[in-house]
């Protein structure tokens, strides 16, 4: 069944070209049998028109969609014009050959039966095996020409019929470089999706866990200690609100395909708010952020995220609770350096937060390093200036 479908699709693929090749028959017929030069000239004009079709971009588009639909070619829509023209030419030639072959078959059969009749009457010995096989006698230049045209047409038709899918994929198909580029784009898309999944995993999943626990605490304590229950509920509220904002952020990236500046992250002030928040929570922050820091709008959410992670990290690990934060914008790009003291030497564990920073930096063509130097944990992130964000 499958093979039958393939056969049918190949036939359908050749038919349009065969129709375009019909003027050939018209030329031959009028030249040999009607003997009216005007009709022959009309046929020749038709033939030229058919060949001219091979150079029209609109025909190339048709060729591509035919190849894609009927031959299953992975078509390169932006392929070179020359390739398309060559393929259209070969396609037309195949259609013309098929027409010639199909029309000459009855002639050949007639010849063959004539030869067979001769053979039965004892004259066959005068023919060569090839002549007998082809059903013709190569006794005049015209017959030789006819034989060559017929043999050429039929063999080219057969070769094209068998090889058209391969030819299409070579000439019209996407090159290896294109496919590599696409798989690279896929990989980047996947990396972004993973990053988003990790975002949701980190922020929303964790927030939900805390919110449920705090809600349980509130429920357990409400009759025992109303103040405690109230605390728990306030925590639930703030945790949920933050998770909601995080989720909005992630969903916005998902919907638009590329990081956009979110409603929260309108300007650098939101980063200032973030710093104020951790200062209220008891972290001493020495922030060096130039007032004239000019950050591209699309970079802001990433910058915000990185600063947020750095602050969270310092909140958890800085002993004493202290952080030096520096943001610089130079010709090379953005640089974010966060340093906090750590006690107890080197902690090798790199949490999901830092991995998230690294993933973001790498995706944007930058880099991120984190290490402990002389009792200080140093996070150094570099982001190049915006060129293109992988879609």
């Amino acid at each position: 069944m499958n093979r039958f479908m393939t056969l049918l699709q190949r036939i359908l693929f050749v038919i349009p070209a065969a129709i375009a090749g019909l003027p050939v028959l018209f030329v031959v017929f009028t030249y040999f049998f009607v003997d009216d030069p005007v009709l022959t000239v009309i046929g020749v004009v038709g033939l030229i028109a058919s060949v001219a079709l091979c150079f029209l971009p609109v025909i190339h588009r048709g060729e591509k969609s035919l190849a894609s639909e009927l031959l299953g070619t992975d078509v390169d829509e932006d392929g070179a014009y020359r390739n398309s023209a060559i393929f259209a030419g070969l396609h037309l030639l195949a259609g013309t050959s098929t027409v010639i072959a199909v029309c000459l078959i009855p002639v050949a059969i007639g010849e063959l039966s004539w030869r067979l009749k001769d053979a039965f009457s004892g004259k066959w010995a005068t023919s060569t095996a090839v002549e007998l096989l082809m059903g013709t006698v190569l006794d005049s230049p015209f017959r030789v020409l006819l034989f060559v045209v017929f043999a050429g047409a039929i063999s080219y038709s057969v070769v094209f019929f068998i090889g058209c899918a391969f030819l299409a994929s070579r000439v019209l198909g996407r090159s290896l470089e294109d496919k590599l580029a696409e798989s690279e784009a896929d990989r980047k898309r996947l990396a972004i999706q993973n990053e988003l999944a990790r975002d949701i995993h980190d922020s929303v999943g964790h927030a939900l866990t805390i919110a449920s626990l705090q809600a349980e605490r509130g429920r357990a304590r409400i009759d025992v200690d109303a103040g405690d229950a109230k605390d728990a509920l306030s925590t639930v509220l703030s945790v949920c609100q933050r998770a909601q904002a995080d989720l909005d952020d992630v969903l916005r990236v998902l919907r638009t395909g590329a990081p956009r500046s979110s409603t929260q992250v309108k300007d650098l002030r939101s980063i200032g708010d973030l710093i104020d928040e951790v200062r209220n929570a008891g972290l001493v922050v020495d922030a060096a952020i130039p007032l004239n820091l000019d950050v591209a709008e699309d970079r802001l959410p990433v910058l915000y995220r990185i600063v947020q992670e750095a602050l969270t990290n310092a909140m958890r690990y800085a002993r004493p609770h202290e952080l030096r934060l520096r943001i610089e914008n130079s010709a090379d790009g953005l640089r974010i350096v966060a340093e906090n003291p750590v006690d107890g030497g080197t902690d090798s564990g790199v949490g999901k937060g830092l991995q998230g920073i690294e993933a973001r930096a790498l995706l944007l063509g930058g880099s991120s390093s984190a290490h402990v130097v002389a009792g200080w944990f140093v996070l150094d992130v570099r982001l190049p200036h915006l060129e293109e964000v992988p879609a």
Partner: protein
Amino acid sequence: MIDLLIVDDEPLIRSGLSGALSQFPHLRIVGEAEDGETAVTAARQLRPDVVLMDVRMPGRDGLSATKELTDDRSFSGTILVLTTFDSDDYVYQAMALGARGFLLKRWPIARIADAISIASAGESVVFPDSLARIVADHGSPPKRSSGEIEAELTPREQVVLKQVAAGLNNAEIAERLHVTVDTVKSQVSSVLLKLNVRDRTQAVIRAFESGFAAAESGSDRSAEARLSSRR
């Protein structure tokens, strides 16, 4: 009354857990700790029956604290690992180091309370179905093959080990096998002795590592199903 020590670096998790668990009359929170170091000190001082131990913490982590406490013969408490996600890589390590089981922070509080009771009773093991998968993903090469386990244990003991791996306690196994609880107890002890392991959890890890228990536990009434049915 079960005395609890809650160890987590995040204050909101600690306050949430202790507040929420305070509603259960049989549980008493005796202390909280924010990292592995303070956890070890607090555990020695407060002698809790059960320690709820987070794994990833700044400074000293839950793994090394678990190891120190389970190696300490004077400490008789049970350690349950607290984790946010059941696919956590560290969960298996903590279990291998001697934690009795693990709890997901996102479980409903009644289920967490149940798991604490079950673990402190010591008659069954506490972990979700995913343990088999975690062991398969992170486990060390089996110390014994499935065939060796089968050769070492009597057919009856093999059946008992499979039930233990499915998370059943002694009474449930007794009921299912139509024998007395004492018979089950002696068979479980014999299994622990023959496998040379400290407790049921370690026996179950051996069973999963070797593949001895993998197939049956899935179709059986698992610890997960059992925990949820008790609610």
